[in-house]
């Protein structure tokens, strides 16, 4: 390989290598990549250090909003197995889509007393608000 080509190959390799390096740094960084679990998986595995994202459903009637409108606590259950639950406390902006039975994702860590303290709360925005049980409810109403 002649020297000119070598220069360009080195340049390309350099770009690729720094990008890979940056990715590794970013993922390894504390708070970088976050493990994503369902309530069941989270309870099954002893929670390690660091942040977790836990995915589940809001137990109907469990939402307790504090008067500020910015603090809420609720019980989240595993979508498939309603007996597996964790209690969640959250402070911050509560999304419009956060309601009973909504699919939610919380990010945070377990306090020693077994309450999950969430730093972020995401409620999936349903692309349409009609679901199978919604229709049943509508017919019942």
């Amino acid at each position, binding site marked *: 390989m002649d020297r000119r080509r070598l220069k*360009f190959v080195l340049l390309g390799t350099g*770009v690729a290598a720094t990008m890979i390096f940056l990715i590794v740094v970013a993922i390894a960084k504390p708070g970088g*990549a976050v493990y*994503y679990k369902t309530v069941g998986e989270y309870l099954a595995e002893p929670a390690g250090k660091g942040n977790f994202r836990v995915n589940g459903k809001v137990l109907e009637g469990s939402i307790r909003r504090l008067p500020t409108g910015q603090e809420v606590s609720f019980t989240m259950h595993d979508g498939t197995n309603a007996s597996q639950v964790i209690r969640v406390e959250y402070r911050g902006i509560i999304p*419009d889509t956060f309601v009973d039975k*909504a699919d939610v994702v919380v990010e945070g860590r377990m306090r020693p007393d077994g309450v999950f303290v969430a730093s972020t709360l995401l409620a*999936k925005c349903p*692309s349409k608000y009609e679901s199978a049980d*919604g229709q049943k409810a509508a017919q019942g109403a």
Partner: protein
Amino acid sequence: MNLFGHFALFLALVASVWAAVGSVLGIVARGRGLQQSAERAVLATATCTLLAMGALWVAFLTDDFTNDYVYHYSSRAQALPFKIGALWGGQAGSLLLWAGILTVMASVMVLTNRRKNRVLMPWATFVTGATMAFFMILLNFIESPFVTGAARPDGVGLNPQLKNFWMMIHPPSLYLGYVAFTIPFAFAIASLATRRTGDIWFRTTRRWTLFAWFFLGIGILLGSYWAYVELGWGGYWAWDPVENASLMPWLVGTAFLHSVMIQEKKGMLKIWNVALIILTFSLSIFGTFLTRSGVISSVHAFATSNIGPAFGIFLGIVFFSSLALLIVRLDDLKSEGRLESLLSRESSFVFNNMILVGIAATVLFLTTFPMLSEAVTGRKVTMGPPIFNLVNIPWAIALLFLVGVGPLIAWRKATASNLKRNFVWPAVAGAVTLVALTLVDAREYVDALRRLGGSLAAFDVAGAFDHLKAFYPAITFATGMFVLGTVGLELHRGVRARRHQHGESLPMAAAQLVWRNKRRWGGYIVHVGVVVVFFGIAGSSAYQKEGVRELQPGETFKIDDYAMRYDGYRLEAVDDHVGAITEVTVWYKDDPVPVGRILAEQRMHPNMLFGELRQAFLLAKASAFGDPETYRRAVENVYAVMQGLEGRAGREVKTMSTEVGIHESLSLASPSRFGEDFYVMPLWVDPGTGRANFRVFVNPMVNFLWIGGLILIFGAHLSVFPDARERRRLETAMLLEERAAA
């Protein structure tokens, strides 16, 4: 109408299959008749697809709720524009729109090329025909918009967050971009298949490529704007998988647009260019797949569906067969020149390509990592925006620097005098900006430097990158000024020369300069637009201020240099929702004259499937023109009914949405605030007392993003404007190619 739609789609399937099969037979048998028939089949596919779209529109406009798709995405009360736009509100309709655009583009391709591009056309027809056939299979057998069900009195209606003007034009714009890349791809494949690897394929499709690149870019910006004004989180980009899906083909498409110039001028990078267009098209398909299949969970949360496997198979076929064809034809793609020096225009384009493709690759990796991780280790992982930012911002800044270098550095090998002539003054402009910005906040920068040094000394790489963040805005502004400097210097020289030669006035000379070389100056203007967009991103992400406060009517809240007073509220029941419109007045610093008044609304869209709620809502709507007090009480009653139902019926009682209130500072009278937004959204409003919780953002420079977008639109239009010189170039190239073939 539904039967008609079904039928039209089926005919479109037959026609598109014939377009693909017929052209292959035409190629094999060298039959001109077969080729002609296949080309006509493309036109027939377009006609049938448009008829199917028409049928669906009729179903929407006539409130035909026996159609499942209409039932889900429309309702009687839905305003007319949203009945029309609801066509692409869901999965099946989006695919229909995709197919509709594709068939129309394929027809334009046939009509404009069937006489002059006889060698490439059969293959190009095959590729587009096969792509159309794929979408027709999806629409006929997997995801049809014409599935019918029981007769229903009213529909569910479009998700309120989609009822927005920008949402009406953002998906079509994105799709125009995604789809238009099919045509350059088809011609690239045709040139490989026929071994006519000269420059006909990309010269013929230059406009298509620019068109695709333009609409994809504008679609991305429109999506950001929509997210900004509608979703109410004060931001416009979150590295969501769906956003990434549109960014990746745009990045690779941008790389293609640049590297193809090197082939045009120097006959180099031939393999690379074909590889790039293959990659761009594959990423367009992948983008649609990612958006529509629900493979990766996303805030957009489109329903998981069964089109995933079909898309996977199609994508695999496209990608691997094109790659195989490219490898078979490697010998035909010999470079006519070679890269001589690192300091040359060729090299700066190569370097720009490496960065663009590199960023696209990291975005692809990070977007699909959760999927890979789950497949390999069984553990789900998510990648947050900080990861994307850490990886991409440094390279994005490097890219911005090349935007300044690329167009002006000399071909082959830059001499010291070339560098001095073009870059000394711009570099000074950049350096002055950097020094000025750091002096303004000197103490903060010294602190940041000290922290950076500390992390580096402790070998804490991640920490160092965290501290580096403090410097990104200043570096971005300085680099941007450098780029603006290069364009400004070029303009200055050109104008001076014209005035000297032709004795024209200053504006005349500038206009003539730009008009005489539309392609080049269109490019420069696009670059200026890109710089302005970078400024917007840097300013709004680095200096955003946020606050949340609960206020009674009459109370005031201070944030940053602003004060906002909550003046009052008003209840309404219109269209398909009830809402509380809050009014606030905003002041800046000590100025007694208010900056402006802002209206922002918290809306509730009641689910009309509940009879009780529907009645209360209709009553409230009906009393809108009567006594205001009765009206208010009727609306309050709707809120009360919703609250009552909530406990019994679960979540489907209502959906909430917020109409954000924004005051843009676009007056040059206050230059320090130019482009700044004061952004207000009520998180909730008590219908009885008006007590409301506001989330407020001050977003400096955010309007630069949209202004940059407008500049970009202007530049892109200029560069594709019909140009006699360009046409001659294309004609010469075609002539040469034909001679070579003969």
